[in-house]
């Protein structure tokens, strides 16, 4: 499954992705759709739990962001933006509290797809059933990326992890809003090409800072990509070559910038001081 295959599939692209995967893995289309329905319900549960509580994470670095944003006045009068960001952070704060979430494609990037997809659907008043096939397409985009690159921050930096989830979300939102196969794949490519170079630098190695807010930003990033693609804008670079470029950058990236907490934000003096204090308080 390449992005070019999906791009050339009849619209909506999700149907081709579903048929192809079912043939490969011996599952029926209805079985896959049923699991996707339950995954949407799980995503919703984690959003709801995350918006209600401000309980701290393991380290205390995060936990109150989603509720804080959700309860705050809408400064920009941009309810879609606020909803997408709050949903995304709600999921990742649940994750940081060792709560139950859906890895999509990973746990560190779990908020991006629900933030973008469920956020847009709720903003427009759409039913959850409308999200099932777009979620199938999101998974297909993830499969296409993982042909060339591992989708974890430890393997390819955050560009591979949240870049993948943003690309998956962008395609899903594009299809949800009636975009063609071509538009959905270009949305994915644009989301990914504008994530290239992003390092994975979690403070202390915990999936908390910058992971939680990063999911909020990249959920919005995915929605932006969908908006461009629905207006017929396209990635100048062919979509599969965008993946190649991301994979190449990932291989060139030093280990210090791949989830080891040995570079970037994790090595700031403030982060180091915080971790020292944390260690003391745990003793």
């Amino acid at each position, binding site marked *: 499954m390449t992005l070019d295959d999906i791009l050339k599939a009849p619209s909506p692209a999700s149907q081709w992705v579903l048929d192809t995967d079912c043939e490969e893995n011996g599952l029926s289309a209805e079985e896959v759709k049923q699991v996707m329905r339950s995954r949407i319900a799980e995503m919703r549960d984690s959003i709801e739990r995350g918006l209600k509580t401000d309980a701290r994470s393991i380290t205390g670095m995060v936990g109150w962001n989603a509720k804080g944003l959700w309860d705050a006045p809408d400064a920009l009068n941009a309810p879609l933006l606020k909803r997408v960001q709050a949903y995304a952070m709600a999921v990742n704060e649940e994750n940081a509290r060792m709560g139950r979430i859906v890895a999509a494609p990973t746990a*560190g990037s779990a908020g991006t797809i629900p933030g973008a997809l469920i956020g847009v659907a709720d903003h427009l008043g759409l039913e959850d059933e409308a999200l099932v096939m777009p979620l199938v397409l999101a998974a297909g985009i993830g499969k296409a990326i993982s042909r060339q690159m591992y989708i974890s921050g430890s393997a390819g930096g955050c560009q591979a992890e949240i870049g993948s989830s943003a690309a998956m979300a962008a395609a899903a939102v594009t299809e949800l809003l009636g975009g063609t196969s071509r538009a959905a794949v270009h949305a994915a490519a644009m989301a990914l090409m504008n994530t290239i170079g992003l390092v994975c630098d979690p403070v202390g190695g915990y999936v908390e800072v910058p992971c939680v807010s990063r999911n909020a930003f990249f959920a919005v990033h995915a929605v932006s990509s969908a908006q461009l693609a629905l207006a017929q804008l396209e990635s100048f670079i062919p979509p599969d070559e965008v993946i190649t470029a991301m994979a190449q950058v990932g291989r060139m990236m030093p280990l210090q910038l791949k989830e080891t907490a040995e570079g970037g934000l994790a090595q700031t003096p403030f982060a180091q001081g915080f971790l020292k204090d944390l260690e003391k308080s745990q003793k």
Partner: protein
Amino acid sequence: MSLLDMIGPVMIGPSSSHTAGACRIGLAARQLLGHTPEKAHLGLHASFAKTGKGHGTHLALIAGLLGFEPHDPRLPQAFQEAEKAGLHFEFQDTDLGNVHPNTAQITLQGGQTSIEVMASSTGGGIIEVIEVDHFKVSFDGFSPTLLLKYQDAYGMISRVTGLIAIDEVNIASLTCTREKRGGTALMCIVLDSGLSDYAIRKIAHIPEISWIRMLPGFKRL
């Protein structure tokens, strides 16, 4: 790789590779032993050793050894659950050489039997078992997998696969490794679906076979 791996698993946070994958490594090791272990020694390599603590990797591995799946709400209390189940465990940082940074080597004992398993967590909750009792293998634990230890002899593959064929089950991959000609060997067969109890009994009755495990495949929920 299935669509369901890209949107999933449903899991307890915070990390799909360090938590969900670690839990499945524990689960695979438990399935290879065949029951809840009494003693476990867990060697953690590279990233598992370095950043495992904050990711709940230790808890997740023990949860898997107890038979919990990645979404089990008891995962954060795995150490207390281990005490209840009579499982004693110890962790050690170790260098396993040129393997994936998220790799664990697990030795389990219990019920007069023991097993050693090495497995890597490759991202998104997906794992690869790379060694069983020092024999090289490669399977992901999602598909039903049959493992056999036997005395190397001619016709073994044919006898085993013949019995699988009678069950009308398709083989996805088959690997054999042996210590030396005529020595102990390990066969690892990844299947498209599980075997009947009858077929497993028939295979287990082949005289050269000393050990057999049928792993059911992880649930994708």
